[in-house]
């Protein structure tokens, strides 16, 4: 008896030890561990994915091609989302999602049916929820603005198992506290979907041209950047009661670009500059903490703040390889990387 008990203790201890060993183990799980991906949208000839290590010493311009050879990732790469050790690369122009191992980038499968101009995805409980723009109103005036949907993908089979019709346009998607939140620039609302019931809940009206968003401490922050004489805004939605407050930007920050929250600070872009305010601030800052020296015609097309660094992608001319710029939080340039055509996002793989 005692022996058995002792044995059990020993066994569980050893398990514990080995487990914690695993957790502390920083050995990379593949060539592309401990770094970040830069997604290059590409033009009609197809997109690519670049990789840089966290310390910025290793860089590969086109890892999808490097690993998967002649397989074609698709046209207009829009978004990457992760689940476990897999990465899902959405090719909006090809109606396909490439499923790869996030550490080796080796192709595992493709989601090839049930998608129509897929945009962004999130994962919950073994299922991916991917927004689909479906048809556009300039081609299909009748239903182009109301036929967007969420494709629910069973990640065990990599097949679309069902759809949630949204009756509106949809683009970016975020999961928070078992609810899906969706923005789109030509929709004046944040859509709210309960994935458990697949039901649309009462949306939150924020105004048109809402785009990037993030949740922090129960508050959804959405950056909206209207055209014309309307000022840009950060709209704060308190998710518990869906009440809305706003930080309206001065005219000098018109057509704001992207928003990212990092360490209790909201970072946002306007033109070629990055600004920061605390999450409790009530007014916008007009003092740039970093300004990208992009070539003529360049514009910020991808943006992130992570690991005490600011990541900026220059959209470029969409016909040539463009660049990603990495700054520290005080705005000094750390690295310049020549990536692919039309880089539009950074995805951290740690």
């Amino acid at each position: 008896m005692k022996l058995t008990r002792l044995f059990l203790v020993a066994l569980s201890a050893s398990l514990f030890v080995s487990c914690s060993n695993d957790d502390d183990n920083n050995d990379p799980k593949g060539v592309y561990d401990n770094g970040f991906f830069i997604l290059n949208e590409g033009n009609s000839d197809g997109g690519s994915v670049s990789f840089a290590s966290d310390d910025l010493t290793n860089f590969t311009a086109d890892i999808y091609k490097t690993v998967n050879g002649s397989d074609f990732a698709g046209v207009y790469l829009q978004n990457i989302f992760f689940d476990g050790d897999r990465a899902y690369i959405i090719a909006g122009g090809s109606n396909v999602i490439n499923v790869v191992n996030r550490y080796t980038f080796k192709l595992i499968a493709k989601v090839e049916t049930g998608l129509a101009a897929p945009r962004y995805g999130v994962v919950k409980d073994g299922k991916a929820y991917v927004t689909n723009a479906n048809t556009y109103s300039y081609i299909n005036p009748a239903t182009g603005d109301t036929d967007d949907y969420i494709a629910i993908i069973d990640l065990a089979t990599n097949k679309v198992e069902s759809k949630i019709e949204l009756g509106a346009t949809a683009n970016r998607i975020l999961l928070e506290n078992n609810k899906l939140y969706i923005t789109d620039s030509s929709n004046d609302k944040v859509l709210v979907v309960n994935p458990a019931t697949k039901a649309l809940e009462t949306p939150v009206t924020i105004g048109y041209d809402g785009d990037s968003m993030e949740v922090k401490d129960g508050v959804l922050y959405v950056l909206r950047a209207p055209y014309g004489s309307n000022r840009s805004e950060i709209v704060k939605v308190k998710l518990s009661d869906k009440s809305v407050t706003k930080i309206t930007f001065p005219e000098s920050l018109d057509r704001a670009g992207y928003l990212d929250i990092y360490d209790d600070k909201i970072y946002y872009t306007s033109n070629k500059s990055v600004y920061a305010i605390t999450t409790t601030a009530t007014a916008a800052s007009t003092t740039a903490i970093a300004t990208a020296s992009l070539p003529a015609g360049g514009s910020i097309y991808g943006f992130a703040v992570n690991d005490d660094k600011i990541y900026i992608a220059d959209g470029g001319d969409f016909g040539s390889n463009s660049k990603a710029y990495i700054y520290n939080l005080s705005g000094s340039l750390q690295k310049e990387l020549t990536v692919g055509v039309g880089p539009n996002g950074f995805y951290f793989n740690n």
Partner: protein
Amino acid sequence: MTLKKLFAFYLLLLCQIMSAQSDSITKLKTVVVSDSNLKKYSASQSVLKLNDSVINKNEALLTDLLNFNSSIYFKEYGRGMLSTVAFRGTTSSQTAVIWNGININSQMNGSTDFNTISGSDYNSVSVKAGGGSVIYGSGAVGGTVHLNNDLSFYKRFENNLKLDYGSFNTIGINYKTNISNEKWSAQIGFSKNSSTNDYKYLNQYTWKGEQRWNQNGQYDVFTMSANLGYKFDTKNSLKLYSQTSNTDRNTSLITETETKSKYVNGFNRNLLEYDGDFGKFKTNFKTAYIFENYQYYADNSTNQYTFGKTESFITKADLGYTLFKSTQINGILDYNRTKGFGSGFGDNTREISSAALLVKQDFSKDWKNEFGIRKEFTDNYKSPVLFSLGSSYQFGKLYNLKLNLSRNFRIPTFNDLYWEEGGNPNLKPESSYQAEIGNVFTYKNISLTQTFYYIKITDLLRWVPGNGGIWTPQNTDKVNTYGTETLLSWKKQYGKNYFGANATYAYTVSKDIETDKQLFFVPFNKVTAAVSYSRNNISAYYQFLYNGFVYTQADNDPNKIVDAYMVSNIGIDYDFKFLDSFKLGFQVLNLWNENYESLENRPMPGRNFNMYLNLKF
């Protein structure tokens, strides 16, 4: 009898020789050419004329004919799909396509899709290298491609039927009849070329290991033509050219999963022409109505589409006067009104008038000079004064030196000016200066033309992403283009054996002045070659094309290129001598099964076959 034989001999072997040499054909019988200025004002430039015997040896659509027989570079979005050109390193809207003397480049996008044109609808297709805006207007920067219907005025009733059947269910039905006497001439015909175009991609498999093939690539190109001529007397004649065409094409997929789309486009062209020949004084009046339209179905399972159409009304008066025996003058007035309507660019009309003066002076049989000047008048853009200056001198029998200097332009299109959103109404035309030296060597049966050219292009239009992500065209780029073109032709008869050989070589450097990079989709090297042999009823030929690599990006990323490729075709036909001619032919296309692409991710077919029956009666 001998004349007829000689004629047949020429037909057989006169592949792509310079126009100067094809004179002997046209002089045999009374044939009225539709575009007299092409011959009259091209002494100082090189013109490659492809007559119907060459046209019949090539695949039906114009891309193949010109790709295998001229130095023009083609970018094809898969077999039979959208096909655009780069001539002398210029852009696709800097090569003007001229139908019986009228510029027919699209008013919407400025270029011509060479896979919507069937070569057999014309009596000849000529390729004139170099600037020609003084005569042909916008887009004649890199060169011009001339589609000509020539009406004959002699007693004749002749039918020509060509039936093709080839791989991928490729079917061609091309028929033309010529009915004429000394007063009347009619040429009526139609062509229908279609293919399911479902060829396999060589050595390409999906991630699941399935063979990849060309999906959604079917096309159907249909054209009807009717050309009529009437001679009132020796001085006055009237001609009517009319053509209607419809191209119904799906767009081949680059991934199996993408939405299948379809592009339908068509045109209707009518040209009424009066010729008056009063000795020293000659007149030519043209009135043309040209209609073009397209419908793009982003998803061809639905009936939803975007569209565009334009209607152009053109009048042209060309008054010619022979000043002295050696000097001819032409004054040309031109008015063009184009109305465009489309889902992308609204409803707009533009009017352009122009005046031009052309002078041709032959100091002697050996020394010919040309001079031309043209100015356009329009509210839409500031138009530069265009000119052309040329000289040709024949040194003995062996050597002909040609010099030409010109200023040419390309005007902004409806898309450039009016696209919603992004169209820029304040654009300038693209403008270019061009200089060339041509050396033509003729020795016995060999003709060698070597041309060096230099083109300086400014205000090149480029769509750039602007504020708020809206793309807009700007006159941003400056480009220097220079290179050489070599045309070689040879023919020889040994007893009953007739041999012919032709080759072209183009070396092209086309650099953006600011970045010093080669323009994308301009190959440094392109070679074509053809040899033909015939004896009695049999004729055979071999064609070869080498296309050097092209960059696909403006930054010349060495990883982003379309690889060089070599493609060969071989063909043989036998004339059973029923009727006037009854030829049964067989062709192997892409003989060596080259795995190649004209554009990245758009593979072309491997070895494939074609059979044809060519009847004359």
